[in-house]
């Protein structure tokens, strides 16, 4: 019997399961801190991609100018069955793609993906998912920093925050709401309320070259705490709304 034979009794290639959602779309106003000058603002929307197990859309406006903006769409697929040798833990893969203009050289992209998979290998509870693979797809929709074509640093921190939100949306177990803080051209990813570091990206040709590494981390931590607060607030608010809708449905 041919292997492809067993797909004979399946539906057409574009068939989708009928799902009857209990709740309507959750509308959340953007969490913005525009009233405070010189600060970044973040817009979060989870679950936009219905084909993925979990997804997040992140819009980050930078601290320097309005034009400094990063738009990122993250989707998480899996845990999927893996083939080949037995693996007691899940295998994580991170893929980065610029969906509009391709400006970032391939070498830097590879470096970026390695950095991100290192961070999330430490954070995801991989033991819970034996024999499977988790795929993370990052789609950079837009990134600009006025004069510069792109700013890798703000992209990286958006990636970290976006992946965390997408993993939470997918319901994949992670040990902590990991988030990244950015200072000058350095990025530090923290867990456990800033007491532990899971990733450190040192920027090139930075003006703060002479600065002490501890003070860099301290500065990054401030940014991290702000980002994490926004993310947690969004998650809790979303869940509250869903909860609320659920109750309304059961009442009827």
């Amino acid at each position, binding site marked *: *019997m041919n292997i492809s034979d*067993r*797909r004979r*009794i*399946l539906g*057409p*290639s*574009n068939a*989708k*399961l009928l*799902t009857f959602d*209990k709740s309507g779309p959750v509308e959340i106003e953007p969490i913005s801190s525009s009233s405070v000058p010189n600060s970044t603002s973040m817009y979060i929307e989870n679950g936009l991609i219905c*084909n*993925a*197990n979990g997804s997040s859309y992140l819009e980050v406006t930078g601290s320097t100018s309005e034009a400094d903006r990063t738009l990122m769409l993250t989707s998480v*697929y*899996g*845990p*999927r*069955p*893996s*083939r*080949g*040798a*037995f*693996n007691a833990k899940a*295998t994580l*893969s*991170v*893929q980065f793609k610029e969906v509009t203009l391709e400006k970032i050289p391939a070498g830097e992209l590879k470096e970026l993906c390695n950095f991100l998979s290192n961070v999330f290998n430490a954070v995801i*509870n991989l033991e*819970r*998912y*034996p*024999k*499977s*693979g*988790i*795929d993370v*797809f990052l789609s950079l929709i837009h990134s600009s920093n006025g004069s510069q074509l792109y700013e890798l640093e703000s992209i990286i921190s958006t990636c970290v925050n976006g992946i*965390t939100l997408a993993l*939470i949306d997918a*319901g*994949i*177990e*992670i*040990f902590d*709401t*990991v988030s990244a803080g950015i200072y000058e051209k350095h990025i530090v990813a923290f*867990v*456990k*309320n800033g*007491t532990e570091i899971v990733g450190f990206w040192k920027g090139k040709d930075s003006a703060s070259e002479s600065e002490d590494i501890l003070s860099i981390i301290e500065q990054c931590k401030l940014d991290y705490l702000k980002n994490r607060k926004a993310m*947690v607030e969004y*998650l*809790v608010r979303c*869940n*509250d709304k*869903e*909860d609320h809708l659920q109750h309304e449905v059961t009442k009827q």
Partner: protein
Amino acid sequence: MSFYSKDYPIAYPGLLICPAFELGEKTTDSQEIIRYIPGHGVAEQNYELNGHTMKALTATLIGSIDFEEDEMATQTPIPTTEASNDGASKEGDGQEISDNEAGGKGERRYIVTVKDQNALERNVNEDFANNLPREGSIVLVRVTRISLQRANVEILAVENKTLPKDSGVGSNGTGVTAAGGGSGAATFSVSQASSDLGETFRGIISARDVRATDRDKVKIMESFRPGDIVRAQVISLGDGSNYHLSTAKNDLGVVFARAFNGAGGLMYAIDWQTMVAPSTGSMELRKCAKPF
């Protein structure tokens, strides 16, 4: 006030729930120990507080926190060695007591879980959560191929738990696969990952695991046919590609089957090894699950 009776806000990954141990009621001659065990959506992690390392439970998912007393374990406490190392340290609200002190008496256990709102009130659901099949899980599978020694199956859902909603995506051909990622990540073979669209977890039911009696007389042909939906239990995670499954119980076996290799109508079990198609009256042999 004990942690299990507290009111909690909505849990999110990284939220500290409670310490691994807590001191309960104290009488003159005994001290009650409350132990918290991480369940679904909860992980035990080391935290440092004022220079001491202590174990605490944190949420790993978003949802509501649930404490459930484990009464079986309360009667027969199982001593663990890992806790006795940092036994006598008491710190903040997280007290740790070694098992030696507890003496196995007056210990209560609570299993802490984080439950998603959507997961409640559902038994089998294919679009939530990440409970992969593990040893002992009851799964619903579809037979894809049979041979004299075994039946190859694909796992559709885990009973009382669920598979992620995209794990079946591959079976109808939509969705993306990472180049060298996901299923290909372990082997780094792009062709292997994309050539096989059936991205479901696969399993094997060996002839000797079909039923509990007369194992050597089992004929796969008289137990399963391709296309049958079978209720089975995971006996081991198996090798890289297949879970090992068993139907050697009364309530396990074929639950749905069509006559004439899928061409006829739906059949119903009339005893543990025969199914009948009511429209034609034709009978076929299967290893049926006990109807209930």
